[in-house]
């Protein structure tokens, strides 16, 4: 990692040059929410002026650039009672500007899942390698809890990371490409004052979190509370719409379906993102549903995010962005669910008479 500082006008010039020639996406306001807050999304951008560098957080995550909602995995062409299968792993180069640390952490987690297992995914690898990621730090929203999961800072997984230190950006350069591009622009070695400003910025961000979720020993609590009535309580609210998984930066579960072309000369095999909250997630042929209740499916999502993944990859998969909490139509948010689960545990350990829920 190499550190530099760049003035804000010069940084805009750099972004201008970068996006002029390349397919680029950056945060833009697309709507205004009912409560008056602006709604941001990663949208195609053609110049630095179109990018809102001071945005809060996007409603959807950046995972859709790597795991598109719908993606063609392979094609079949039919002829003479047989077929040929064609696979193209190629992907177009893309520039992503303004990812938050938790977004980049989420990509690192996806790298772990999709590239380091027994069967690495070439589709994901092609997209990941062809993407130029510029990260930017931000002050947390009132409901962000990424600090609880230590994802409010990030030290790998990006090409370039910018921290706002007032008049300048403090740049963390993590790839030779980014370094080479920046050589054409006016950057300076960080001065003592710049380093002080950077430390202050870190302290400010770290001290600005207003939401905290205690996730310590959550894997074990989820195991012990597997039959907890908390799941029925929250399950009763859940609409099984799958919105939480769609906006989640790390939810990667999918389904595969195949479709014939309209001329019947070929077919496509497609991957489509799915959600474990959808009713038919675990339905097998013949109609048996391994998770028939709302609560079972909601529990499974938490179980996968905080328990299952912790066992498989030694970290919880949630990055604490609270997109699912913001997007949920019935107000189910992870802080409330997790705290409910912990409270229940505490009340049972301290109360002298059996908990009324347990008798």
């Amino acid at each position: 990692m190499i550190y530099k500082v760049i003035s804000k006008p010069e940084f805009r010039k750099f972004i201008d040059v970068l996006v002029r020639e390349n397919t680029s996406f950056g945060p833009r306001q697309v709507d205004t929410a009912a409560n008056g807050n602006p709604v941001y999304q990663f949208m195609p951008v053609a110049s630095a002026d179109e990018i809102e560098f001071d945005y809060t957080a996007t409603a959807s995550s950046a995972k859709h650039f790597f795991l598109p909602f719908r993606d063609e995995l392979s094609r079949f062409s039919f002829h003479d009672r047989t077929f040929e299968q064609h696979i193209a792993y190629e992907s177009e180069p893309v520039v992503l500007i303004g990812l938050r640390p938790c977004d980049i952490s989420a990509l690192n987690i996806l790298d772990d899942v999709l590239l380091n297992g027994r069967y690495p995914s070439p589709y994901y690898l092609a997209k990941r390698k062809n993407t130029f990621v510029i990260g930017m730090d931000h002050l947390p929203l009132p409901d962000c809890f990424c600090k609880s999961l230590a994802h409010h800072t990030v030290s790998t997984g990006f090409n370039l990371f910018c921290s706002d230190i007032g008049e300048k950006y403090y740049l963390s350069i993590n790839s030779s490409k980014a370094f080479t591009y920046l050589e054409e622009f006016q950057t300076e070695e960080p001065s003592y004052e710049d380093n002080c400003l950077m430390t202050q910025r870190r302290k400010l961000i770290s001290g600005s979190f207003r939401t905290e979720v205690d996730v310590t020993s959550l894997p074990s609590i989820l195991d012990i509370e597997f039959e907890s009535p908390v799941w029925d309580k929250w399950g009763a609210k859940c609409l099984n719409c799958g919105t939480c998984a769609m906006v989640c930066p790390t939810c990667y579960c999918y389904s595969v379906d195949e479709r014939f072309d309209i001329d019947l000369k070929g077919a496509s095999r497609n991957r489509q993102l799915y959600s474990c909250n959808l009713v038919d997630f675990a339905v097998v042929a013949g109609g048996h549903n391994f998770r028939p209740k709302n609560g079972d499916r909601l529990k499974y999502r938490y179980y996968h995010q905080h328990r299952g993944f912790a066992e498989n990859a030694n970290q919880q998969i949630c990055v604490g962005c609270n997109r699912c909490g913001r997007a949920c139509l019935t107000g189910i948010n992870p802080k409330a669910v997790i705290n409910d689960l912990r409270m229940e545990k505490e009340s049972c350990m301290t109360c002298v008479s059996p908990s009324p829920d347990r008798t």
Partner: protein
Amino acid sequence: MHDMRFTIPRQDLNREAFASSVPDFNLKSDLMKTDMGYKCRITNIVSLTEQEKLFRLRIVDPEERRIFRFKPGQFIMLELPGFGDVPISISSSNSNHEYIELCIRKAGHVTSALFRIEPGMHLAIRGPFGSSFPVDEMAGHHVLLIAGGLGIAPLRAPLFWINEHRDRFRDVHLLYGAKEPSQLLFSYQFDEWKTISHIRLHTIVEHADAEWKGNTGMITELFGDISIDTKNTYAIVCGPPVMFKFVCSYLDRLGIPMNRMFVSLERRMHCGMGKCCRCMVGSTFTCIDGPVFDYWSVMNLKEAI
């Protein structure tokens, strides 16, 4: 000041790899496992009942046929282009490199389409995936094979193995239950299993018809007929989810150690590679950690059975 003619070209953006170990995707056999299927020709279809058929598949390319090897208990993803792919246990001998056999029940979208196709047509398989029965570890012991209904299909691979290496095993019992006598699959092989393989076969049906002279009732009632040396026995249980509970807890009470009882689980799968998460049981993937689990693992998995 920077020169406005300076540009950052597209082809330049391909970035350095961040993943520590970037895998080599050029190996043909690796690709075959994951995304590109082995093209197979259907050489034979046997109708076992109205709902079940036995498909015999031969990999078309000789080189691919040489690469494809599996262990008893593993499954493949059967790909019917345009319809989809489904996980199916291999129910033929793993020493047979000429063809594989799949026993398939007509249950969903893909299998219904499969029931309309004819011998000679082509489809694809990916795999093999998953864990297998510990046939080497089982050598020198008594073996108890317990199948319910279609559960006989994944048991055929270890049955073939035992038949081919019969001298390595002591007493072998096959307990096989079905709803009705007509639903006992592979009944044409019963005599062969009994006389050639020296497997003690015990069958039972829930609802007898006029011609049925055998046992009637639940599969656990067969345990009364046999004596089990529990300290030297391996058990493999395969059947509908409800059967596992009764049979495994019964065997547990008899005293067969939990790590010598094996079950083959069934879940919805879309990839077979531990990516789609459809088959997840707790923190475990049925496709890469299973489908064969020992009973200890199953007991420790939430919502497994």
